[in-house]
């Protein structure tokens, strides 16, 4: 390995090992979201949706598909990436990563890449599950994939930060439970924002998840709560924020190097 070149072999080693670790629990990983999604479709799409009118010209069952996928993408990205880095901290095997000829950026890329890959795979599985229940059209497939990739990377970065911050399994679970789940449920996965009364409608515009779900739904049906530009802008902003925090972690060695 020459002095300045990237340690691609090292990144690949982490990526492969992370994917293997995730595949060890592939059954739980796939079964849980697939069953949950099926339940959502039965309850929301079937039982409730049959009594509801279409939302913005989209059948309610189909309307919730992008929201459900986004919900899974967010939670999976955060949990995969946070466990991915927390686990070596917990088992102390992190010493090997820290002592390797690998830059911090390379390590982040490998861990985040693996977490994002897995959550995208799951999202695609959920999408496939959904087509078994409702007719799904994808108006802008390229944008759909772009939103998936951007969101999974952004929230895997966020999960990586959570994993570095957490000092116990409780702390690891607290961010998803206290912050992410409420934001996702209030993020317009199951309804259009303009269905809400004021002031909730305005308040919703401060919920970042609204922008993600909206943009993603736009890629399916061409309609969203906010403009697609705003959605993309928000995702980019969030990613930039995470990168800035990671930069600070790298500079200070926060919770990684005593």
């Amino acid at each position, binding site marked *: 390995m020459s002095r300045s070149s990237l340690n691609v*072999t090292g990144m690949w080693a982490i990526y492969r090992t992370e994917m293997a670790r995730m595949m060890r629990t592939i059954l739980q990983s796939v079964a849980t979201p697939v069953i949950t999604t099926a339940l959502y479709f039965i309850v929301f799409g079937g039982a409730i949706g049959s009594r509801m009118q279409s939302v913005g010209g989209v059948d309610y069952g189909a309307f919730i598909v992008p929201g459900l996928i986004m919900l899974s993408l967010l939670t999976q990205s955060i949990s995969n990436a946070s466990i991915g880095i927390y686990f070596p901290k917990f088992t*102390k095997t992190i010493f090997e990563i820290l002592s390797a000829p690998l830059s911090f950026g390379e390590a982040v890329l490998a861990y985040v890449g693996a977490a994002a890959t897995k959550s995208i795979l799951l999202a695609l599985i959920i999408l496939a599950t959904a087509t078994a229940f409702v007719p799904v059209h994808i108006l802008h497939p390229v944008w759909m994939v772009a939103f998936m990739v951007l969101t999974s990377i952004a929230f895997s970065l966020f999960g990586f930060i959570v994993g570095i911050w957490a000092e116990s399994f409780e702390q690891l679970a607290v961010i998803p439970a206290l912050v992410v789940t409420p934001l996702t449920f209030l993020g317009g996965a199951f309804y259009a924002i303009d269905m809400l009364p004021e002031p909730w409608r305005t308040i919703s515009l401060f919920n970042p998840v609204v922008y993600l779900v909206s943009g993603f739904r736009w890629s399916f049906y061409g309609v969203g709560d906010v403009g697609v530009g705003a959605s993309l802008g928000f995702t980019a902003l969030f990613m930039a924020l995470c990168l800035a925090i990671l930069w600070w972690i790298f500079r200070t060695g926060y919770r990684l190097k005593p």
Partner: protein
Amino acid sequence: MSPPILSISAVTKTYKGGFTALQPIDLAIERGEIFALLGPNGAGKTTLISIVCGTVAMTSGQVLVDGHDTRTSYRTARSMIGLVPQEIALDIFATIWDTVVFSRGLFGKPPNPAYIESLLRDLSLWDKRDSRVIELSGGMKRRVMIAKALSHEPELLFLDEPTAGVDVALRRDMWALVRRLRDTGVTVILTTHYIDEAEEMADRVGVIDGGRLLLVERTAQLMRKLGKRRLTLVLQRPMATIPPELDGWPVELAADGQQLVYSFDANAEDTGIPTLLRLLGEKGIDFKDLDTSRTSLEDIFVRLVERVA
């Protein structure tokens, strides 16, 4: 001339809580030697090793590995280093083979199954290569740690307390391995608080205590310089007190009065032994056996620490 394989200059460490674990440390390690860092618990051995390996950030100073700065040229520096930390830390769900292959990849080396095989055979791990770490005994896990550290063919190997809590077989295998590594030109730095281990294994010894490197010396030289010898006489009849005739002689009783131990300077012209034995004969103090031994590094160490304190 090639630079030392490791050069530590004025390295200090103050932990975040404000505790200073290392006073300025200067140390140069020559290529191919076995160096023992000897010191009691809390001396700063692990801290010093961790700084060289990049798992702890130094507060000030500079570390060069084969001339490469561990901060500015960390890729080159780190790819030359293998580390077996004090505590076992493994992904327990991975197989031996996978985790060792992972380590090699992590250090940027292309796959080399033949090398990994020979490494696992050397460490008696080959038959268990497909076992998961969780199924292994403590000793086997430690072997896996060593295999991982050697997976990328490092030129500088750190063994942090390699024999703490290790069985005899592993200890023997480990020393055999260390000697073999040295024969292939690998430099080995080990930490220990077992003095006999340093004495047995190391070409040079560095004594560290309270974050200060008290001395660095060739093991043999250190022994000669500070080493005393001891004559142990196993008495026919146990004694309760040292007889007054031996007043002024550096003797003491041991083993409940069954042994008389005489300390003498191994380098002196006159060891005093003939005089002592004649004296004992005259006084009718008979012995049935005798033995001489060197004072261990332990005694030397205790003396050093006392002198500095």
